[in-house]
């Protein structure tokens, strides 16, 4: 009975599925177990996409979408990059400025939604276009042919290339497969998880997403909570943007341009509801990792571009259907018992 309960948890099923896929790809081609070229980069990219997924999760919790999540990441990277290049700030100082820029953008987005009462889809779509123009304009104006801020503050490469193997307690060092980039991701996972499970703000966000009218009648300041969700989203998008810039090596307009769809994929695969009211924080990490394992697994098999995308789509569809298939089996069994 307890065993059945465990398997009704989507996160457990998703974790087992990810492990199964990982082993399957590894057995098909042993190169997939390579630490340097597969596991380490997978976890590093997974860490970044998880943080961006959490940015999306924050607004999904109230039933909103943030289509500008990638551009918010780009603006944060731009601000941090400019601060390193022109003002000579340290890695941490620039990072703080960048994250604050993300938070400010989130606040502006939330404020527009609250004041205009226009759907978040429209507002964030408009914000995405506006920020695309702004980011491109600033890079071209200030950096000319380079179109990027290329100054690397001390410590930037450390975050890109080092692993927990560089952390030692006496003779025992951490595993080489775990990148340093996992640390900010774990920090964000813990904070977001704590907020939704242990704080009043978290519960109010979920109530707002679950039933706006009921939340209002219960005395929840829903307009404030809309602002809160978008501020968190902007902040996390900012952290994700910095992680992308540190990983890739410079601050460009292209940062975040490809993360909008993955930002939904992780949370939704993990069990977060698009309609709001329920979030899966750890599920976001597991869902993100599963998509990356599938993609890189197929890539290591040497599958071409078209086949790769078809196979990726089919496997994801199957993974998304697992929950539904489980429910079907459960309801059939219940009917049989009756």
């Amino acid at each position, binding site marked *: 009975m307890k065993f059945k309960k465990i398997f009704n948890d989507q996160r457990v099923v998703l974790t087992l599925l990810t492990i199964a896929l990982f*082993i399957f790809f590894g057995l098909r081609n042993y190169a997939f177990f390579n630490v340097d*070229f597969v596991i380490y980069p997978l976890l590093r990219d997974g860490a970044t996409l998880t943080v961006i997924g959490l940015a999306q999760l924050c607004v999904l919790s109230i039933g909103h979408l943030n289509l500008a999540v990638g551009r918010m990441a780009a603006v944060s990277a731009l601000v941090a990059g400019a601060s390193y290049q022109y003002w000579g700030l340290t890695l941490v100082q620039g990072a703080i400025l960048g994250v604050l820029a993300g938070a400010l953008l989130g606040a502006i987005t939330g404020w527009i939604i609250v004041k205009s009462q226009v759907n978040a889809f429209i507002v964030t779509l408009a914000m995405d276009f506006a920020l695309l123009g702004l980011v491109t304009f600033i890079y071209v104006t200030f950096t000319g042919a380079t179109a990027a801020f290329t100054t690397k503050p001390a410590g930037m490469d450390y975050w890109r290339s080092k692993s927990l193997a560089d952390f030692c307690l006496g003779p025992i060092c951490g595993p080489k497969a775990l990148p340093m980039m996992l640390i900010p991701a774990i920090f964000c996972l813990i904070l977001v998880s704590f907020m939704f499970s242990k704080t009043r703000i978290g519960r109010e966000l979920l109530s707002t997403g679950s039933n706006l009218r009921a939340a209002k009648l219960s005395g929840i300041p829903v307009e404030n909570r809309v602002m809160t969700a978008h501020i968190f989203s902007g902040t996390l998008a900012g952290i994700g943007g910095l992680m992308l810039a540190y990983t*890739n090596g410079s601050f460009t307009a292209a940062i975040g341009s490809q993360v909008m769809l993955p930002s939904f994929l992780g949370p939704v695969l993990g069990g977060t509801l698009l309609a709001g009211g329920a979030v899966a924080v750890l599920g976001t990490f597991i869902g993100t990792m599963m998509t990356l394992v599938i993609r890189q697994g197929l890539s290591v098999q040497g599958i071409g571009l078209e086949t790769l995308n078809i196979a990726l789509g089919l496997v994801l569809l199957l993974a998304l259907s697992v929950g539904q298939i489980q429910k079907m089996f459960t309801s059939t069994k219940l009917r049989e018992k009756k």
Partner: protein
Amino acid sequence: MKKSLIASLAAVALLLTGCSSSSDSADSGGEFGAIKVGLVPGGAHPYFQPWKDGGAAAVAEFGIGGTEFNETGEWDQTKHNAAIDALAAQGYNAFGVFGVSPTDINTTFAGLKAKGFAVGSLASCPGGYDIVKEPQKNSADFCLSTDTGKAAYLAATAVIKEMGGKGNLVHLTGNAVDANTIRRMEGVKQAIAETGGKVKLLTTITDIDSDLQSATKAVTDLLAAKGKQINGIVTTAYNPAVAATDGVSSTKLPIKVIAIDDDQKILDAIKSGVISGTVVQNPWGQGYVGSWVLSALGSKKCTMNTPGLYVDSGSFLVTKDNVDTYNDTRQATSKEILAAFQNEYMTCKS
């Protein structure tokens, strides 16, 4: 429930920490047969397709262990890095790479070099500095690419000549924040400046090289709005070139066009006189020469005299006069570039 979840995650962690590297670094032998070259463009684009044939020709001619063309980068630096990693995991030990982001790719090159691989920057050089003056800043062993500014200048000069040295010119090109595009824009502006004001740049349309549909729409809108004012169009990106050829052909406007690259549509349009010509680049030569140089470096047979050296892979004006013979010229130029690497740019063991 939580305990079971933690147990599952612990299992993953155990699996990860228990894994060991199967090929931590490149350990190339002394022969070309031990070298497997990964040719990795930033994503799918017709421009890069001749890399496959160029690489295959090098394998057949020089006995290289093999080449693999991987275009799964999808124009995203993160996915591009993942594509390179996938090849490295499969045992590829030399890489010819087109960087999605010119300012990011040096970081990728440095990572590959640190693992002992031979790395060449093909079709685009790392950005953020002047590669000709400061080759030491290139983390790859060399850069073999079109001099985009020079190619754009060549195209603009040719179209201005066709326009009779006066009139309004339009420039159609790719991503506005790409360093190569900015060099192309400068090349076109230089050719216009040399006319002493007789030719005016009516407009430069950027960001229309992502796909043919958006390029076609931009050209259709342009010709509908300003078709009669335009005397010449110079295109410095593939999709706008095809779209401009189609647009001028269907509207029959008396606009002189110099395109870029050698799509069959463009070649047919040159033969039928719809457009004046095209500037072709040399992706075949990049694949062919690049594969040999990477094998020579990977096998430790040769070393670069100037690490990070930039070499122009060539650009050629094709008109009705040489449309049937330009490919021979291009292949001959590729052999000359290869000879220059062997005799001038590298020092090789006998």
